[in-house]
Structure formats: C-alpha cells, structure tokens
C-alpha cells in the first residue's frame, strides 16, 4: 500500500506547499506574505519534476490501469501549465489592500485573502492530477470535486464586483447540479459492474453482454455530467457568463484546470469501457460514439457561432474554449488508433490539451495585463474588444502576444495550434470520421472570423482616444505570462515531435487479457455501412 503513495508524490508536494501557503498568508510580515507566490512556484516546479519521475508504463504499480503510461505526461503537463498561469495570479486579489498596508495601514489578517488564493489554486491542480491518477470511481468523484470546489470560491472572490459574485453563484450552483448528474452516473456504473475499480469495471465491460443498458445509462450520465467540466454542450451554458464575470486571471485558470480534469476523466473512463468494439477492436461502443459525436459537433458549432456575436473578449475566449472542447472530443472519438502516432486520437487530444493550455493562457494573460478607467473612477480589467485597438503599437509585447496566441488558436501554421489540429485531423481521418472532420474544418473556418478580430484589432486598428484607452496593470507577472505563452506558441513548434511522441506513449491502452468478442451489433453496423 505504502509504495502506492509514490504515484501521488507530486500531489503530496503541492499539498505540503498548500498548507504552508495557508499559514504564511496570514502572517503579519509582508515579506512572508509575499513569499506565497514564489513558494507556489517552487512547489509547482517540484511537482513537475516529481511528475516526470512518476511510475510509467514499465512500473509494477501501473499494471492493470487502462493507461499505464499516462502519469508522467499528465502530471508534468498540469504542473507546467499551472506554472504558466501562476505569474498572472500574483496580484489578483488584494493588491489594493497590500498597497494600503505598504502605505502604513495596520495589517489585519482577517482582511487578507492572499494565501488562500494560492492554496485554492494548488488544491485545484491537485484535483486535476488526481483525476489523471484515479483507478477508482470513488477517487475520481472526489478528485473532480477537489478540482471544482476551489474554483467556485476563486471565482466568487476574484473581484469585489457584483458580476464576480454572479459568476460565482452560477458556476457553483450549476456545478453542483452537474456533479449530481455524474455522481448518479457513477452509481449506475457501479451498479452495472459491481465494482468501482476501473480495472474491474474494464473486465466486467469486456465480458459478453457486460456493457448493458445500465452501464450505458451510467456512462451517458457521467459523460454529460463531466461535460460541465469541459464546458461542452449541453453543459456549456455557464461558460461565457462565468468567464466574463470572474477576474481575467481566474478565467484563464478556469479555461484550463477543470477542462483538463474533465478530459482526463473522460480519457480514463472511456479507457475502462471503450475502444474494444468494432471490427478492429479500436472503436467505442456505437451508442457512446454517437453521443460523443453529437456532443462534439454541437459543441464546436455552438461555441464558434456564439463567439461570432460577441464584443467582450472574455466571452469570445469563453466560447472559443467551448469550441476547443469540441475539437478535443474529436480525438476521443477517434480513439487509440492502430498503433501509430498519426492515428492516435487520444494522443492528439492530450497534445491538443497542451497546445490549448498554452494558447488560451497567453490570450487571457494578454487581456489581464491591461486595465482601464472604470465608470466609478477606479481601475478595472478590460473586457471589450475595442480596448484592444492598436495595442501592438503602444504595448508591443502584450499586443503581439495576443496576436500570436489568437492566430494559434485559429490554427494558423506554423504556430502550435496548427499542429495540434493537424494531429486531430489525421487521427479522425484514419478512424474514418470524415464527416466529423468536415464539420471541424468548417468550424475552423468560421472561427477565423472572430480570431482574426482578436488578432486584427491589436495589429491593424487604430486607437481612438488615448485617454480612454487601456494601460498596463502594475502587475508585471501578467505580461510575463503572456510573453512566455506567446514564445511557447512559437518555440514549442520545434519540439512537437518529442511532445507528440510523449503523448503517444502516454496513451498506450493496456490490452485486455481476455479475447474480446466482437459484438454482433457492431457487425450489423459494419454491414450497414
């Protein structure tokens, strides 16, 4: 038992740092308080390093898991993207209060929320990592909740404006609603197989008649419930409101962490039940394939078309994140393929998750780095796309980061997003999902309209009024995050080959020991084709 702990070393490191941060965040000494962010950074670095050391496919501990090689990739990915988001967070909460303390006001720990913010950030990342680690439905349920609960609070406390509270209440209540759905799904899945262990579920499902209606109902409810985490149709409604209402930095975090958790959950759940059907034994059960297909197609279409109508950058990015979930689902539908990287949809999904994390963080960081005069005289975060006008000329670093990240989100070669999409395309084509590929291609074309606006406003437009135009925030970390992300979008292109190989190795599905009989239903399906 105790040796099993080594698979959660990164989580343990993060949790230790969480406790320390919680404590020193309350300290009366400003030097100690300001150590929260560096400490979090160190913990994330440690987690990334420990994540690399996680037991891989050759380890005894991982035998029987659907994806024995998943951990090193997943944990390192999560920790590194967390590290990218971290600089944005510095100064998110209580900056004005810290200023007041610097001016000589007495520090009152009851008014500070500094340490807790980093603590929640890390707790949520722990949850994401545990989702990727889970070998058990109970664990998975708890990990999903651990991912979400901190984000609920982070949204509500991100700014003191009413819209943050509105975002918080919508996110929390709908999140609990969604959680009830996937909890019921987990219950039915347990009911259908008699076990909560993924390895046993996998064996039970592989038996003849194992994937009966009860299991299907459970899986459908889980998939729909987890769709909330990845903001996919029909659970996408909250995304735009919440991203817009939350502070920009928190929105950036929301765009990555719950989504990653949701995709890891879907990956290992479907790894436990799926891709053993069809003539080649590498397809999902037909009913799952159909519903994922419907969800994916609707998600990209609705996300992209709604994004067209927006003038708020955060809403555009929110709907774009909805659409990107649809793209990533395509990889999930394509499945593990026939052993090659180009046909491995799961690897494509994981690789795209990496690309998406970098790109979207960069875009959010770029707008988080700016602020404008609010109606009540204070400074507020920018939101309207008009605020991006002529940014490249005034603040070239931020402006170009926005341009590069938007173009990458659009999938323009030779940026990172293009290669992510390319991999999704090839895997979907080799899985025979031509229609879905066409839908995805059309959606990419539609997406060009609004991504070009995001890229064109900073680059091609002219500023209207200097006085009303946004200025840089005093928090340099956000600029840093934007630049690092933009550089990453360009520079990671050089490393796509090893990255894709790593994601390919991470998604090697353990073959089932027993010979899986081909369902007669799928033969009928083949005949119909």
């Amino acid at each position, binding site marked *: 038992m105790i040796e099993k702990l080594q698979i959660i070393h990164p989580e343990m490191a993060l949790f230790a740092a969480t406790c320390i941060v919680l404590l020193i965040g309350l300290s009366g000494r400003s030097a100690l308080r300001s150590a929260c962010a560096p400490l979090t950074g160190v913990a994330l670095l440690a987690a990334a390093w420990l994540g690399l050391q996680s037991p891989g496919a050759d380890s005894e501990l991982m035998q029987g898991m659907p994806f024995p090689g998943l951990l090193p990739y997943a944990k390192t990915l999560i920790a590194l993207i967390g590290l990218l988001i971290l600089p944005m967070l510095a100064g998110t909460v209580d900056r004005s209060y810290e200023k007041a303390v610097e001016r000589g006001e007495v520090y009152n720990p*009851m*008014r500070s929320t500094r340490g807790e913010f980093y603590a929640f950030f890390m707790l949520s990342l722990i949850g994401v990592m545990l989702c990727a680690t889970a070998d058990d439905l109970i664990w998975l349920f708890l990990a999903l909740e651990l991912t979400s609960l*901190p984000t*609920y609070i982070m949204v*509500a406390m991100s700014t003191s404006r009413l819209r943050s509270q509105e975002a918080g209440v919508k996110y929390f209540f709908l999140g609990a609603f969604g959680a009830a759905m996937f909890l019921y799904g987990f219950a039915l899945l347990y009911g259908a197989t008699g076990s909560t262990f993924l390895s046993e579920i996998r064996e039970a499902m592989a038996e003849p008649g194992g994937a009966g209606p009860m299991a*299907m*109902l459970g899986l459908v409810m889980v998939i729909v419930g987890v769709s909330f985490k990845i903001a996919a149709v029909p659970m996408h409604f909250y995304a735009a409101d919440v991203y817009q209402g939350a502070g920009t930095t928190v929105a950036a975090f929301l765009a990555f962490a719950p989504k990653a958790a949701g995709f890891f959950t879907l990956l290992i759940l479907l790894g436990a039940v799926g891709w053993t059907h069809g003539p080649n034994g590498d397809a999902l059960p037909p009913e799952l394939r159909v519903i994922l297909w419907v969800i994916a197609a609707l998600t990209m279409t609705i996300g992209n078309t709604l994004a067209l109508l927006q003038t708020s950058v955060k809403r555009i990015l929110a709907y774009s994140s909805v659409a990107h979930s649809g793209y990533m689902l395509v990889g999930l539908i394509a499945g593990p393929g026939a052993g090659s990287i180009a046909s491995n949809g799961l690897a494509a999904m994981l690789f795209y998750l990496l690309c998406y994390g970098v790109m979207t963080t960069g875009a959010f960081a770029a707008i988080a780095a700016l602020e404008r005069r609010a109606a009540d005289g204070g400074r507020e975060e920018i939101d309207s796309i008009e605020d991006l006008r002529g940014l490249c000329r005034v603040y070239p670093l931020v402006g170009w980061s926005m341009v590069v990240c938007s173009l990458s989100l659009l999938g323009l070669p030779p940026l990172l997003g293009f290669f992510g999409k390319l991999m999704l395309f090839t895997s979907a084509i080799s899985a025979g999902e031509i229609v879905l590929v066409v839908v995805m291609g059309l959606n990419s074309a539609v997406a060009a309209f609004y991504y070009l606006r995001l890229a064109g406003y900073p680059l091609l437009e002219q500023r209207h009024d200097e006085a009303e135009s946004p200025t840089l925030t005093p928090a340099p970390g956000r600029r840093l995050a934007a630049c690092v992300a933009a550089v990453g979008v360009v520079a990671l292109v050089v490393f796509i080959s090893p990255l894709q190989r790593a994601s390919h190795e991470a998604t090697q599905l353990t073959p089932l020991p027993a010979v899986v009989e081909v369902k007669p239903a799928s033969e009928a399906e083949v005949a119909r084709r």
Partner: protein
Amino acid sequence: MESLIHPGILYTCLALGAVGVALSMPRRKGGFPAVGGLIAAIFFGAIVLALTIKAGENHPNLFFYIFAFLALGASLRVITHQRPVYSALYFILTILSTSALYLLLGAEFMTFALIIIYAGAILITYLFVIMLATQAPSEESPEALSDYDADSREPIASTALGFALLAVMTGLMAVGVPALKAPDLDRNPDAVLDLLPRKVQRAYDTLGVSRHALPLLAGARVEAIIEAGQTDPDRAVPERGAPPEPPPASSYWSQTRRAVLVVTDVEGFNERYQAALAVQRGERAPRGVRPLSRDAMGLIVRVTEDESVSPLVQPTPAWGMLLMEFPESLRADNIENVGFALLAEHPLAIELAGVILLLALVGAVILARMQIEAGEQERLGALGRGGDA
C-alpha cells in the same frame, strides 16, 4: 429486450403523475398541493404496484412501501412547500425515510451515519441559514412570504422536463436491470475475516487451536486439510490417514454454512468439550478439566445432521475434525465490512475527503469574511448604475 415493466404503463403513469406534481407546485395563490400530491401518489403507487405484481414472490416487504412513500412524499413537499423552513424540515423526513430504506437494504452503518451527518448536522445548518436569511414576520404581515418563495418558476415546463428525464432513466433501467449479471452468490460474506485475524485469533485462543488453522477457519472454503503436527499449511497433502472429503464447494456456503476443519494438536479437546456440554446442561465440569469457553462452544453447533455431537469428533489424540458453524459473534457484521472496505480499499480516498473538508472549511471562512467594501453600493448608486453593468 426484456423490460421489467410494460413501457406503456410506465410512461402513462409517469405522465399522469407529472400532472400531479405540476399541480402541487407552489403558485402565488397557493396551488393545489394536496390534490396534486394525491394524484402523484396514486400513479406512483400504480407503478410500484405493477412492479410488485410482476415480481411475484420476490417483492420487497411492507416496510419498503411505507418508507418509500414517506421518502418520496417528503421530497415532493420539499420542492412544493412555500416556506423554506418547512422544506428543510421535510428534507429531514426524507433523510430519515431514506435511512430506513438503507436499513432494509442491510446497510446499518450507513443508516446511522446518514441520520447523524445529514439530519443531525447538515440540515441544522440549512435551517440556521434559512432563519438567518429570511425576514422575520412582522406585526402587520405575519404571513409574509417572499415573492420568490411563494411562486415557482416555470412549474409546468420544469416538471415536464424532470419527468421526461425520469421516464428515460426508469425506462432504460427497466431494461437494464434484467440484463445485469447475476451476483456471485457463492461469495463468502465473511471473507473479510480472512483479513481481520485478530478477532479470529481471540476465538481460537479460547479453543486452543493452532495458529496455522486460523486462515482455514476464517476463510470460507476449507479446501486443505492439515496433517497433524505439520506446521506448514501450504503443504496440504495428507500423508497419513484418509482425510474426510470436503463438501462440494459451489453450493457450500449457501447450503450448510459449515466449515470443515482439521484441528491439530488439540490437547484434551474431547474432555474439554464434554465438560463444556456438561456446563451447558447445568452440570458441573469434571475436576481438572477446563471446559471450552462459551465462544468456542458457539463454534461447535450442529455437528452432524441429526444434531448429535460426538461422532465426528474423533478422540484421536493427534487430530480431530470439527464440523462447525460460525457463531454470531464471529460473523462479519456490516460495520466491520464497511469499515474494512473503507480502510483497506480506499485509504487514499479518506485522505482526499479530509483535504476536501479542509478546503471547504477554509473556503467557507473566506466567503464569510469577504468584505462588502464600504460605500460600494452608494458609489454605484451615485453613478446611476443600480448594479453592475
């Protein structure tokens, strides 16, 4: 596909029950909770009745009907009562009836845990917050109901939606349940005792049985016979004497629930056994002989079919054979089973739950102490923006 209930009956009754629920939703004028509840109860009763008729002998006992009715009725009141306090109280009733259903299902531990945690702790908090966040009735309007409590939002649409969901779920379950694999009935419910050696150890200490026999007694199926004096239980092949044949394994536990045990090096077993029997009969044990303890005696019941005691207990000094049944005190009960499953199979999940509770604690504290900055509302009001644009 085989379905447990005729879809026509199911959907018709659900649709009519939905009408009842929709009727009982709160309206500004009060609605018809009684009528609606009655209609809903009738049609839900019809579905359960249809199920029970189909079930034949294999139906649940009376208490199921009582507590299911209570649980669902109270749930309906939770969502239809216009006063939040009553809703919360009805939710306590829901919890209590649910825990009774748990008891019927043999989950004693969860029964009590549910009552303590939910009804005892969580719901009290709810009541507290409801009290805190509701305006107290004043002199003029003692019946003051908040507008948002008095009136439900889109009652018909949401009821229709909820019942559509219910229809597809129950419909699919009705197909899914018969398609389930049969549970493993031969599985030993007391298998956990294998892994809980200390309790068994105590029992054996009183019996004076070899430690090597412990796994055999604890384990459900005794497939090995240990030779007298042999200390290695893995070498299970007898070299001397004809071992008695173990009963067939498959139906073993479901039929007899007896273990065949070869007890080695039992010193004076027969004398001690007879002495204990004598004690049971109210006689005095022979001098110098320590009778077997009550626990150990509990192990030795119904030794043969005709309930005579001695025939199989051979007075051979080297080894004896015992046909025995676990005494109730040695049976693994629900709490042990749950506790073991919890601690042995999900230890990390417990830690994780602890982390989540810590997080909830910190989060609640933060939310509670979040400042509403002084004058924020006034400042916004002065700008002519009642809220946030």
